[in-house]
């Protein structure tokens, strides 16, 4: 696949972008608070050391409810490390992450997910042998409460949850625009569809904060445009989004606020316009030719 600019969207995946509202049955079962302003996540003095390497040095920032926050920085600045430390993949050396005032420290990853923090992966990590729909339903299962004996004997709760998960799963696939591939195995999907499926699977866990780790990696400009529309639509639905991205155009175009990391330290934290004109940021990051970053 060449990265040449294509005038038309090259994939069949993008169809339902005019009306990105979640279809009936797909709404979050949780009360979603949409007012922007109040802090949803507070990252407090997060420090992460790998042996002698200081990957994150005393990073603090807030994520406000309902906003799209961009996390940018040159290669190796610690973006993904910050992500992993937040989502419980790494245990921070010091510092803390609070979700709605509750510390995530020392919690198991699946508990953190159930508390409302979902993520996608930089290198796609779908369940390849499962169909697209099944992948999404794994995410939905995070909110299900069927026990093993309940599933074994098909008790009423199991039946109810299974029935609703088909509808919600399909609605989510439709929302990200790949409903027509629901019955295909994840590994048979095209690259763009796989990225979208990752987003759908993360949304299925019904997160308060959706963390997207370089969702546009490997996308051509047309696909990036569509992704921006999707991210905006996700916010419209009441989700808060944390976006790690290399592509400055995408970040500038979609975020409300940007946190810049460099060498594991927070360099700046401001609205995109101010970031664009911040001399420190320009020196650290934008000074490089932009094309390299994508």
């Amino acid at each position: 696949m060449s990265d040449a600019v294509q005038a038309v969207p090259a994939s069949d995946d993008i169809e339902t972008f005019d009306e990105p509202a979640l279809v009936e049955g797909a709404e979050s079962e949780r009360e979603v608070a949409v007012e922007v302003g109040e802090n949803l996540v507070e990252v407090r003095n997060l420090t992460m050391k790998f042996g002698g390497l200081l990957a994150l040095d005393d990073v603090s920032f807030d994520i406000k409810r309902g906003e799209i926050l961009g996390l940018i920085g040159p290669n190796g600045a610690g973006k993904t490390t910050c992500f992993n430390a937040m989502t419980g993949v790494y245990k921070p050396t010091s510092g803390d992450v609070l979700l709605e005032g509750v510390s995530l420290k020392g919690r198991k990853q699946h508990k953190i997910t159930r508390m409302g923090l979902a993520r996608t992966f930089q290198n796609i990590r779908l369940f390849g042998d499962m169909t697209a729909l099944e992948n999404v339903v794994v995410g939905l299962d995070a909110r299900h409460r069927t026990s093993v004996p309940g599933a074994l004997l098909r008790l009423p709760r199991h039946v109810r949850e299974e029935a609703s998960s088909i509808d919600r799963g399909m609605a989510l696939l439709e929302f990200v625009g790949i409903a027509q591939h629901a019955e295909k195995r994840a590994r048979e999907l095209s690259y763009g569809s796989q990225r979208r499926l990752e987003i759908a699977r993360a949304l299925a866990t019904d997160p308060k904060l959706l963390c997207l780790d370089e969702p546009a990696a490997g996308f051509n400009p047309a696909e990036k445009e569509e992704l921006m529309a999707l991210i905006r639509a996700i916010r419209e639905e009441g989700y808060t989004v944390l976006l790690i991205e290399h592509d400055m155009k995408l970040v500038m175009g979609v975020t409300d606020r940007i946190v810049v990391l460099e060498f594991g330290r927070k360099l700046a934290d401001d609205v995109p316009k101010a970031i664009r004109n911040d001399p420190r940021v320009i020196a650290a990051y934008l000074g490089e030719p932009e094309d390299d970053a994508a």
Partner: protein
Amino acid sequence: MSLSSDGPKIMPDAESAREAIETESIAVRRHGPFVHLRERWNELPRQAQWAWLLIVVAIAFALPYLNFFPLTTEPGNDWPIACFSMAVYALVGVGLNIVIGYAGLLDLGYVAFFAVGSYTAAMFTSPDSPLAKIPYLWTLPLAIAITMFFGVLLGVPTLRLRGDYLAIVTLGFGEIVRILATIIPAMNGQVGFQNVGHPPGTDAHGLPVFVVSNGTPWYWLTLAVIIIVLLLAGNLERSRVGRAWVAIREDEDAAEIMGVPTFKYKVWAFAMGAGVGGLSGALFAGQVGFVNNQKFDVQTSILFVAAVVLGGAGNKVGALLGGAIVAYIPVRFTAIADYKYLIFGVVLVLLMIFRSQGLVPAKMRLLAFARRAMHWVPPTEPKSAPESANATEGSAS
């Protein structure tokens, strides 16, 4: 051991990752007789599927009477007892498939659970045992409960390990159980337990129905058990439990991050697999009527794993067939019975080269109401865009 692969790993260039995915989506087109058969099966209405299943079950129940040339065992091997042995191995295959096939946990000590089940049946029914006696049929649920307990006992400390490490520890566990049977005086070592119990019932002449010399009633009992276990395993498969298992098999870290309590479900997989193993062990002990420490060696464990891999890990019907085949070949071809490990080894190597997914490849159905999704899926019309063409054809074929 943790999610290091996501962090410090060198990030493949996104463009090359994309190319890799798109090449793979062409490469994964699968062929083979079973794929076609499965598609036709899936298109059948529910009633037709049940009708076909009834026919298959009827044939399976008639199997001890289908004692004619190409099928029958060679002289010296009793055909109904061979049928029973096939059924027990098939049940073992179904149980081990939960562990290996669904959850992707390589258990090389599965014979230990089989042994625990056998000893449970023997020690609660044989007059040689000091324990209290209970009716044989009660030992079946008891064997399930005790082996599930052993499954949890093995699982809790070991399931934090992955891959090869887990395999080695389970291998050790298999040996521990066998050696314990040798050194604990109450377990009678090589002397073992004679006159293991059997289900009640007498025929017209007042003789018991379930005797060691007659495999047919034992076979029918085991077949009935298999059908129940298959139904229950199917229920698990099409639930969040089955999905959690497969998610763990596919990518344990990603599963954990998607909210799957991976450790809990791995322990459940061990417990469920162990329960079925114990059940088959108890049935085996009943038919043979004698249990000692000689039958539960590593080779048998490996044979169980071979059965699952041969039939198709991840597919319960495949594992069932694999188990039956592994038990059938040595009694059908007595001349080669001594070389059975050699032959199974060669067959497995060939299988891995030419058909690595096993005889019946896994295509699990992980949703209870998948048919309901169909009305959502818009019909796929031929696409003109070059990128999508690859991906669409891949599974439409």
